[in-house]
């Protein structure tokens, strides 16, 4: 690992000041499960300065206040996976966090790091996009709130400024008539990187008719997005096997429309359709959260 300057901070203000003074030559260290991998790699140049925000206590925790779920950016994946608030208010985010890496990785890795690292396989991001989450970014200039939907430019490129720290992720809880699901396909169960994933949310009225549907594929597109053409097929309908198969195909079609046909398309096209179908089935069964 190349030498660097290390700055430990215990307040967001101190972290912002340190970043602002070194804009462009500093990296933020939170849990370290992505940054240390990068620094370990031979040939990685020195990051210049590392600003460690890991001990800022105010950036941890999950709360439900005034009709909003609020998650501090340093909340670990273990804390997300075990959170009673998330299990009742946004179940698929808890499931997605629990599907990351291993217990050791989940004990250190943070939701903020997962978002800011912006790997296309980031497991917490598809549910957050489906939830319409908002991100609060703090700098010496103050707070800036952005919609997660437009926050990513391309793989590994979040649109944060060099002097900004992600502090809070918040979103409205899912409606009581909604169920959510997160399904992930990896090469094995533990320590797997998502080859493909799907976050889905389905709301139904008293008659069982679908009134809201949100589908966000993961590791499928350069940036995350809902697939409105597939969602629209579901609204106003009652769940059926053929409807879900058709919606799955529609999502695959949208993926191919965006990425074009690549070497992996032959595999991803049918598999994504099946994952969408499974996620929708879970939402409309007792397994949905």
């Amino acid at each position, binding site marked *: *690992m*190349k*030498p*660097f*300057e*290390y700055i*430990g901070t215990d307040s967001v203000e101190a972290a912002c000041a340190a970043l602002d003074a070194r804009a462009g030559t500093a990296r933020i*260290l939170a849990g*370290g*499960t992505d940054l*240390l*991998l990068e*620094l*370990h790699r031979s040939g990685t140049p020195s990051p210049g300065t*590392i600003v*460690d925000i*890991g*001990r800022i206590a105010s950036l941890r925790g999950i709360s439900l206040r005034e009709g909003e779920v609020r998650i501090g950016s340093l909340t670990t994946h*273990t804390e997300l996976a075990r959170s009673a608030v998330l299990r009742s208010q946004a179940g698929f985010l808890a499931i997605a966090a629990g599907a990351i*890496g*291993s*217990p*050791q*990785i989940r*004990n*250190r890795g943070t939701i903020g790091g997962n978002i800011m690292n912006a790997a296309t396989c980031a497991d917490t991001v598809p549910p957050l996009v489906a939830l319409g989450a908002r991100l609060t970014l703090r700098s010496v200039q103050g707070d800036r709130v952005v919609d997660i939907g437009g926050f990513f430019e391309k793989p590994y490129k979040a649109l944060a400024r060099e002097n900004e720290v992600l502090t809070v992720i918040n979103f409205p809880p899912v409606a009581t008539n909604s169920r959510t699901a997160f399904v992930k396909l990896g090469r094995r*169960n*533990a*320590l797997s990187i998502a080859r493909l994933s799907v976050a889905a949310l389905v709301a139904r009225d008293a008659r069982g008719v679908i009134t809201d549907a949100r589908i966000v594929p993961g590791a499928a597109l350069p940036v995350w997005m809902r697939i409105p053409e597939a969602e629209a097929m579901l609204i106003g309908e009652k769940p059926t096997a053929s409807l879900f198969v058709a919606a799955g195909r529609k999502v695959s079609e949208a993926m191919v429309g965006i990425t074009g046909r690549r070497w992996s398309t032959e595999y991803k096209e049918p598999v994504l359709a099946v994952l969408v179908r499974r996620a929708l089935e879970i939402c409309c069964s007792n397994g949905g959260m």
Partner: protein
Amino acid sequence: MKSMTLHTTVNGRACEVEIFPNQTLLNVLRDTFGLTGTKCGCEIGECGACTVLLDGIAINSCLVLAPQVEGRQITTVEGLAEGETLTQLQEAFLDLDAVHCGFCTPGMLMSAKDLLDHTPSPTPEEIRSAISGNLCRCTGYLQIIEAIENAAKRIQQGRETTPH
């Protein structure tokens, strides 16, 4: 790069050591403290051989920078036994042949300790999940799972027979 003084508690002893910020916790444990029970395997957080407890929670010490543990408590495999007296968990690993080549054993023990400290009567599924971040290339997983199950029983029995 300037060295810095790290204050940390390792296996119950408060310590003060000089480190460089680009050292990992794993490097400092092995090279500065001489605690070579913690193994260096993949250095990318996949094998779990470097697992130690940070404030009682299992983590990969290869993915933690040494300055990140300022003021915190570390427990390594050397911190389990009291002198020559092994813990129930270690005894169970020996009795049930859960040690083959032994390279994964320190990490397995630390993951198992985190599990049993927080979940005294784990299900087989919880045991499998707890060691899912630890690779055993001798593939002695069944014995390891049985040993952890057995250790949970021994610890429970110990609690029941110990007068309060």
